[in-house]
């Protein structure tokens, strides 16, 4: 494991000596276990150790945060802009919002990021994290426009590792739509992000993760959040195009009437591997969770979904639903699912469904008899399959934009 790395701790700023010592300690702890492999139940379907050692050598940490080209922004709808370069906060423009209502700054301390046992990447992140952003929306403030985080990666990141950590707090009765827009196609690097989310009473956070173009990046993102009374969290994962991507979400529905939605539509092509792993913890009565995961798998791609619903004994009247569907277009492609239920309360409505298979022949036949040629018919069905995810996005402009970007991906399917 050690020979894989060439880490220079001098490149990372530590605020004090203790932090610097902690980083070294955490790095040693990481080296002891290395990258997780398939023997680890969480990584059963995605052997990260194998993936990393096959694709990387002499991994170093990055200390270059200079923007090397102009970022092309989205013009489809008005939004606030936040720019991250190689994981570090560069600039922000929140001019649509009232002053002092939305705050964003560089994250200075990893306080509040609890240790995750059985997750070695947590040690790695704590050892090498360069910070990230700390975003807070003040009480009773509903953001007027969405915030887009332009997550830009430069072209000189080959064999680099980026570790960052973000914090998001949506205070009481406030609302935020946050779009993470990843840009950067050239270099091959590994990104390890930990994100902490707090949604206070009545707060609403909508999160969309999107990939601009295909990218050589290998991403891991760990989201852990706590939800208060009547809060709502919605996450749309549309990050197709990465070589490897694993998004792990651990949500705690701590107080009554909170709800959590996780929706994903992924379209994976050659040599791509994506995994979504969720754990929704229902700790209070009357909460709702809803998960819908859709994968279109081409070529030799691999899609994985591991979802767990946990319902504590006092969490009566829980309504939890989980659905994963996969369209397998090629014999080399693979879909793995592990939809798990762990339930200790009796008055609940919990169910899950999972299906995988090829495109419905009869539907193709139907379309072809109406004069639509095979390729177009297939694309139409794939589009219909994925578009269902967007039905839950009420803002029309955002929805159109997302549909447009998915359409571009579908067009590439042969």
């Amino acid at each position: 494991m050690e020979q894989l790395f060439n880490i220079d701790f001098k490149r990372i700023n530590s605020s004090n000596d203790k932090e610097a010592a902690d980083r070294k300690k955490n790095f040693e702890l990481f080296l002891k276990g290395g990258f997780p492999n398939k023997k680890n139940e969480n990584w059963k379907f995605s052997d990260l150790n194998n993936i990393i050692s096959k694709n990387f050598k002499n991994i170093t940490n990055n200390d270059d945060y200079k923007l090397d080209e102009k970022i092309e922004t989205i013009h489809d709808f008005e939004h606030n802009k936040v720019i991250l370069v190689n994981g570090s906060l560069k600039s922000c423009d929140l001019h649509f919002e009232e002053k002092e209502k939305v705050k964003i700054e560089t994250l200075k301390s990893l306080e509040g990021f609890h240790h995750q046992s059985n997750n070695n990447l947590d040690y790695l992140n704590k050892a090498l994290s360069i910070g990230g952003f700390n975003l807070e929306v003040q009480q009773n403030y509903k953001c007027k426009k969405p915030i887009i985080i332009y997550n830009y990666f430069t072209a000189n990141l080959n064999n680099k590792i980026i570790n960052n950590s973000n914090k998001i707090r949506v205070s009481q009765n406030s609302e935020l739509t946050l779009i993470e827009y990843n840009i950067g196609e050239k270099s091959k690097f590994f990104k390890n992000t930990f994100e902490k989310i707090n949604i206070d009473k009545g707060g609403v956070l909508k999160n969309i993760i999107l990939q601009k173009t295909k990218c050589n990046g290998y991403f891991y993102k760990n989201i852990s959040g706590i939800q208060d009374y009547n809060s709502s969290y919605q996450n749309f994962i549309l990050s197709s195009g990465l070589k490897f991507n694993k998004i792990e979400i651990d949500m705690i529905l701590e107080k009554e009437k909170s709800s959590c939605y996780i929706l994903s539509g992924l379209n994976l092509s050659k040599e791509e591997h994506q995994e979504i792993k969720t754990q929704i913890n229902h700790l209070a009565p009357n909460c709702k969770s809803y998960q819908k995961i859709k994968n279109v798998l081409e070529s030799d791609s691999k899609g994985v979904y591991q979802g767990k619903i946990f319902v504590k004994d006092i969490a009566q009247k829980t309504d939890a639903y989980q659905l994963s569907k996969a369209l397998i277009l090629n014999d080399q492609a693979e879909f793995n699912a592990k939809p798990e239920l762990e339930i200790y309360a009796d008055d609940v409505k919990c169910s899950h469904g999972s299906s995988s298979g090829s495109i419905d022949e009869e539907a193709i036949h139907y379309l072809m008899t109406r004069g639509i040629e095979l390729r177009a018919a297939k694309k139409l069905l794939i589009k219909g399959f994925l578009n269902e995810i967007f039905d839950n996005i009420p803002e029309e402009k955002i929805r159109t934009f997302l549909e447009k970007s998915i359409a571009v991906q579908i067009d590439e399917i042969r």
Partner: protein
Amino acid sequence: MNSEELKNQEYKYGFTTDIENIKAPKGLTEETIKFISKIKKEPKWMLDWRLKAFNRLKVLEEPNWQKPKYPKIDYQNLYYYSAPKSMKDKPKNLDEVDPKLIETYNKLGIPLNEQKRLSGVAVDAVFDSVSVATTFKGELDKKGIIFCPISEAIQKHPDLVKKYLGSVIPISDHYFATLNSAVFTDGSFVYIPPNTRCPMELSTYFRINASETGQFERTLIIADKGSYVSYLEGCTAPMRDENQLHAANVELVALDDAEIKYSTVQNWYPGDKDGVGGIYNFVTKRGACRGRNSKISWTQVETGSAITWKYPSCILQGDNSVGEFYSIAITNNHQKADTGTKMIHLGKNTKSKIISKGISAGQADNTYRGLVDIGAKAKNSRNYTQCDSLLMGNKCGAHTVPYIRNKNSSSTIEHEATTSKINEDQLFYCNQRGLNQEEAVSLIVNGFCKEVLQQLPMEFAVEAQKLVSISLEGSVG
């Protein structure tokens, strides 16, 4: 009703038979294995096979990923062989069998006397570590069907045993399977010759009697080309404060166009209301559909045992082969179950179906854990899985852990699972028509399980239905 009567009602098979035993010395050693092999008059190859497994066992570790945790088992403090003394020289016919044993089986409702049997079920009765009697042997012989204790098969049909034993569950499998391979004592052996339909249900009845004894039986069923067999398995044990280990291996082999139907009604002693005692039922059951168009169907009704931990599986090797799994697992009081199946699709056009019903009451924990794996070469394969859980009260748990893997584009997998409690409207409807709460619950639960109960052979279905009701007694209100 006094408390003693109540206890008997809960688990009516909890009596012990006072009988003199021959036991192997305590402990898991090479000597114990040699002792078992010697007393069974086994040939050398069998002993070598056992020792090979024993050597393998030394490097294996007990698995610990399961949901129900249990205190560490002291394998050195167990008897691995226990047999009634009267069985030392094998009785030639039923008249020579110790009357006490016959009485035990009569008490269990398994009369070994053939004349008394109304229905055509051939029984192999296993008491602790030996087979007591096998009925209807003559009639089966005429058709060329072999149905005998496995210890007898090792002596009389070594070629068949050598060829198939360990071919589905190799000796290098997981810890408990390997343990069984090293120390297995008895069990049933079935061979159905080509193009033969077994004229009656074959059945094995397992009884644990001796204390501090583990039961390690091994069953091997081979259905040759174009044959059919339906096999039933039942089990009970006395009520004791200690936990007893039961680690059996069951191997099924279905060749071209053959079909095996394997039904289990498992009613080991579940422990008392506070979770003291009961059997640890750690069983490995696996069937291989080797031939084209072969079929293996598992049906299980799991009501007993303190911990049930088993996954009857199908390896669908032959093209067009079919695997089925129907299961009811009921846990009450402190019982724990972690059960399910594995369907491994290797051949083309293979099909599998999984119907699992889990019911938990009291402080019990019930887990469905299963794997559906469709390989890259298993074109046009299909799986349908449905697992439903019913919870009674908020001190119990119901869990579902399916693993689903699809590696080709022409196959389809569908999985559905639900968890709920008994519908209030249904209860109300039944109450209104004069059923009391307990009767109503029993009726609804039986309806919930119907899909699985239907799969059981007639003789078993009635017993199973009663068991379902009894197992849930006291869980309502």
